[in-house]
């Protein structure tokens, strides 16, 4: 894989290729759907459906890109390929605040509360995990687990106290889906902006991600400011996650599956993985959302996107585990 140098040209080629892949997925997502709109006569109706699909595709793109990037970054930060964007508790914080906002304030204010919850959680986890201003993967992971447990309890409490009618809506939202009732283009813009900014930030950190994998001291001696890398990556990945949750609820497994698939395809070089994750994550969720929409057309009711991605996750994990065993057995 590294028998040829990663020059500027090849890098640009990589980025463009993945961008093109995403663009194709996006086009398919808009053109294809459960309803055969291309045989309709009413132009307004066609335009309505196209607008709906365009919103779905863009939402899925920015959420998928954000989650894939956040997952990749956290896996590098925690030196653990099984880390997900939700492992550090940010999604729990965003979710709880969103649920509370929906109950006591208004559905329209949910994204703002979600952001606030995510930011507050970032501060809490950082405060709990840091030692003398430095973050270590182990303490970060532990803090995240604790915070997650706390938030899960909070969500359960709220769910048990609300009226039965609202429980359904909460449970549904917790599965993660791209709602088309309330096209929040401003939020799509925010998440998209964060995804692009995150992509650029992690592209600059890509070298650092590669190096910290062989050791913190070695990385430092090769010019990486490990402390700063950790803190900024943590904050950046958390913001990406919080924003995605604010838009689409906690959609799982995108942040886990996408980096893994890309690693199998491209190797462990983060310089290639970062731009690939951005576009592949986007394309992945666009196609998952398309699948959900098509299933809806066939069966009438379709599971939310988060359920589809979760269903992919289980078999994927099993496959990963077995591949690992096989590789270990081969080495012996």
């Amino acid at each position: 894989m590294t028998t040829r140098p990663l020059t500027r040209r090849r890098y640009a080629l990589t980025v463009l290729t993945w961008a093109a892949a995403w663009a194709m997925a996006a086009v398919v997502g808009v053109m294809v759907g459960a309803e055969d709109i291309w045989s309709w006569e009413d132009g307004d109706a066609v335009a309505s459906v196209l607008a709906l699909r365009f919103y779905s595709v863009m939402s899925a793109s920015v959420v998928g890109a954000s989650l894939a990037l956040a997952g990749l970054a956290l896996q590098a930060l925690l030196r653990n390929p099984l880390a997900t964007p939700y492992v550090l508790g940010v999604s729990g914080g965003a979710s709880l605040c969103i649920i509370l906002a929906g109950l006591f304030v208004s559905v329209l204010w949910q994204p703002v509360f979600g952001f606030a919850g995510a930011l507050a959680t970032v501060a809490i986890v950082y405060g709990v995990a840091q030692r003398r201003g430095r973050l270590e993967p182990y303490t970060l992971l532990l803090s995240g687990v604790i915070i997650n447990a706390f938030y899960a309890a909070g969500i359960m409490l709220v769910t048990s106290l609300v009226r039965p009618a609202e429980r359904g809506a909460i449970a549904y939202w917790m599965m993660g889906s791209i709602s088309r009732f309330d096209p929040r283009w401003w939020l799509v813009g925010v998440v998209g902006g964060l995804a692009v900014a995150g992509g650029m930030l992690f592209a600059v950190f890509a070298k650092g991600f590669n190096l910290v994998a062989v050791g913190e001291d070695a990385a430092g001696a090769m010019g990486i400011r490990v402390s700063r890398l950790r803190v900024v990556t943590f904050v950046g990945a958390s913001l990406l996650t919080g924003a995605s949750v604010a838009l689409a609820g906690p959609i799982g497994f995108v942040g886990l599956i996408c980096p893994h698939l890309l690693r199998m395809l491209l190797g462990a070089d983060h310089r290639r993985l970062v731009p690939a994750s951005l576009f592949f994550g986007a394309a992945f969720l666009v196609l998952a959302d398309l699948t959900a929409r098509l299933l809806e057309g066939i069966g009438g009711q379709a599971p939310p996107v988060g359920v589809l991605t979760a269903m992919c996750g289980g078999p994927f994990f099993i496959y990963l585990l077995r591949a690992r065993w096989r590789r270990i057995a081969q080495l012996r």
Partner: protein
Amino acid sequence: MPRALHAAAILIGWAAAFAAGCADPAPPEAEGPARILSLTPNVTEILFAMGLGGDVVGRSTYCDYPPEARRLPAVGDTVRLNLEKVVALEPTLAFLVTKRDDVVGGLERLGVRTVALESDTMPELIASIRIIGTETGRRGAAEILIARIEADLEAVRRSVRGRPRPKVLFAFPMTVGSTTMMVAGRGSFVDELLAVAGAENAYPEAADWPAVSPERVVALGPEVVLVHAAGEGAPDRLDAIRRAWANWPGIPAVRDGRVHVLTEPFLTIPGPRVGEAARVIAETIHPDLRAGGGDDP
């Protein structure tokens, strides 16, 4: 100066038109039959009862009464709506019972006039029927339906007049793993049915389907317990419910054998069948009514 006046006049004109547009709209002109989307089961029942069944082009997944409604295409429910399918059905008017602004907004954005209704109490139900009548230009049919419903209810009231009013608890079965059951509180729709049926709600507080423990039920001391087990058709399930209640002989209803399991699904649906619901409840509480004593509804 004249230009400023000109601009002001235009602005005022726009404002007036805007204000006029924001006022309650006049009923739609008869451009042809409305294409109605009904997203809540009781609304579907009301529409069919008003004779508008032919104008309904789409329903929610849970709208299964009357049976003709099942032939209509289903577009999901208020939590998850298949908006593309909605567009395909080309509705002009949508009715649903919801408090969610985003669902209403989403439908309106597709160019469908969407009316959010409320039906938590009897007056709200009556008002909703009137609104449906106004929106569809069938005020007459609405008033006829309202009159029928009120007549049904009045008939039940008459049949139980003068009788003592027992304390009745209306409950759902306890779900597996739960230690509480949901009951009808005061002020709820079912509470009004109980009043019509000549009963007093054993639960004293105004609440929206509160959860109570069996111990609380003992404390409330209802003379009659109605367990609404709609959709739990299996006979062994119904037996299980009766046996569960038999564990609490401290409850007067259990002691006197006045725990009844009701399986009619429409008992909690605020729609055209409320009269029948009240009658079923009345006959359960006062079994002698079934024999034909009192006025037949």
